[in-house]
């Protein structure tokens, strides 16, 4: 569905992504983990058409997204839920969601927007309860749900999420990732950037480790969870060693 080859991105003299290649197959949840400043957000922003690429190509369902720009990217079915939610604080929840449906009106599918709103309410019942409330008065977790809901209103085939768990309480994180799994089960492909590698790998099929602008590792979620480098660097602790061998060396 998404294929990125040798993507290079930089700002002025600064190189953020060197040569990154990755892919996401239809139906997958793929996660991108790595330390702060590795380029994860830049990668999502470039795919979304929000940052220009210096080199390489981004193919989405066979189409080159290279110069597509954000609006066309969304219209093609690729939506980004940006880091830090970025909901319209001074607007009610419902209007925030309807804005996400703009692209559906342009597609001439305005009549489906009601259905989509219904679906988002089903996934996040709290958004129905707070329909008339201003988005700025929602809790962090609710704002995250609103941001995801707004992206879903565009009926994306690929949903990209940037750090959805950031600053949220563990229980809320769990709830949000459960919804991500459900969205995927209902047919949306997901590319998930997360600091919280353990949670991300639990919902993902596959993953990539991005370090200083390069892919350092690719593998199934299971393989990455079992990889000792990943355990040491991103999972906080080493998994217990069933052989009981010491830690010497």
């Amino acid at each position, binding site marked *: 569905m998404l294929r990125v080859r*040798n993507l290079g991105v930089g700002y002025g003299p600064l190189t953020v992504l060197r*040569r990154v290649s990755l892919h996401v197959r239809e139906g997958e949840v793929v996660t991108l983990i790595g330390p702060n400043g590795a380029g994860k957000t830049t990668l999502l922003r470039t795919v979304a058409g929000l940052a220009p690429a210096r080199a390489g190509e981004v193919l989405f369902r066979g189409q080159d997204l290279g110069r597509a720009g954000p609006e066309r990217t969304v219209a093609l079915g690729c939506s980004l839920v940006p880091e830090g939610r970025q909901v319209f604080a001074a607007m009610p929840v419902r209007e925030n969601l309807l804005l996400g449906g703009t692209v559906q009106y342009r597609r001439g599918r305005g009549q489906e927007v009601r259905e989509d709103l219904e679906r988002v309410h089903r996934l996040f019942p709290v958004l129905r309860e707070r329909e008339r409330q201003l988005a700025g008065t929602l809790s962090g977790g609710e704002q995250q749900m609103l941001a995801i809901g707004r992206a879903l209103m565009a009926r994306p085939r690929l949903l990209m999420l940037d750090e959805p768990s950031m600053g949220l309480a563990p229980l809320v994180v769990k709830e949000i990732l459960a919804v991500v799994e459900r969205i995927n089960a209902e047919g949306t492909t997901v590319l998930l950037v997360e600091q919280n590698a353990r949670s991300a790998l639990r919902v993902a099929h596959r993953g*990539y480790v991005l370090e200083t602008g390069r*892919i350092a590792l*690719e*593998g199934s979620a299971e393989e990455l969870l079992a990889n000792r480098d990943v355990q040491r660097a991103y999972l906080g602790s080493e998994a217990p060693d069933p052989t009981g*061998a010491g830690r010497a*060396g």
Partner: protein
Amino acid sequence: MTWQPDAECMEREELEQLQLERLEATILRAYRHVPFYRRRLDEAGFDPDEFRSLEDLRRLPFTTKADLRQNHPYGLFAVPLRDVVRVHASSGTTGMSTAVGYTRNDLKTWSNLMARVLVAGGVGKEDVVQVAFDYGLFTGAFGFHHGAERVGASVIPVSGATPRRQVQILQDYRTTALVTTPSHALTIADALLEAQVPRGALALKWGLFGAEPWSESMRREIEEKLGLTATDNYGLSEVMGPGVAGECLERKGLHVAEDHFLLEVVDPETLEPVEPGRTGELVITTLTREALPLLRYRTRDLTSIDPARCACGRTLARMSRVRGRSDDLILVKGARVFPSEIEAVLFEIEGTEPHYQILLERRTGGDEVTVLVEVSESIFFDDMRRQSELREKIERRLSSELGVTVAVKLVEKKTLERSNGKARRVVDLRGGAP
């Protein structure tokens, strides 16, 4: 049947994307974690950041057996020893055995790739698999053992018992799949005849044979004598063990696990890539190995690669059965001779056994090639005239086939040396370079 259809039947374009991603990560890890590779790549002026296509691989230096030897035992490992859960060694066919490490993920990958080979060769849950390789440092037995367990078959780890004992177990345990080298399979078949066990007394269906070069005619003979369907498989301990490639039941080449290994075929002398489809030395780059990533490892094995889609549905390219080792390439009287060519001729001649040895000697008049051929008892004890007729017939055929004059000597059955199931095909007494 296919063990991992998603991987084994992947579209070519998708596979190449995956290979590129994995190759980039492998090069980066080798560069970061293996001082040897950091030095090598720096010396070659290869910047891992500039890597952008599979073709760029050709700019990487080769890794050889000597490199493994010099860094023996753990110098090329890309992970600390505490992350290594198993150590094997190459079987030392060429005289040097070196350590190979596996992380937990490496072992898991290995099991799955072996399961692919077994399933492609006909084996399923209901089969009883007799592993007749030696269990030990050598990877053959453990690889098949893990794979067969992964498939869910019943594994009998017989290891290196006497041929008689192997036959006994084939009978008693109603073994349906036999795993060993082709020459060992023939030895077991001989023991079967000797013990006068009728073929019908066995439940054998599948034979998975590898670890040494063999021929179509040898396959027919094994199948005939043991009453099974035989498939070839390929691997080498340095890059993992068996499981690099295996035949499906179409038996038109061995499907390579291209999602885990990147293969190139080069001319063993110029080291340049050969034209697609031509025979040359196989060079392997590992794509997923954690403990011991190898970049452009020269296997010394001679093969060719066919990327065409197979009738079985797998999209993975197929390598031809190994046609010998580039080390075995005999340069004699200006001609290039591979032992496998001699084998192919012998199989077509009635009365000869599939065991032979090539003896190279230096005489005043130049190099001489003598082929020692085992013949059936009836011929060996037959009258001189029939014996010399057979000998001359083989000499004529070999000389015309190889373009070099070859002397033939007939020897009694079972007189040629066999070590650990692997036949010694070439004895070079010439000393030094020709």
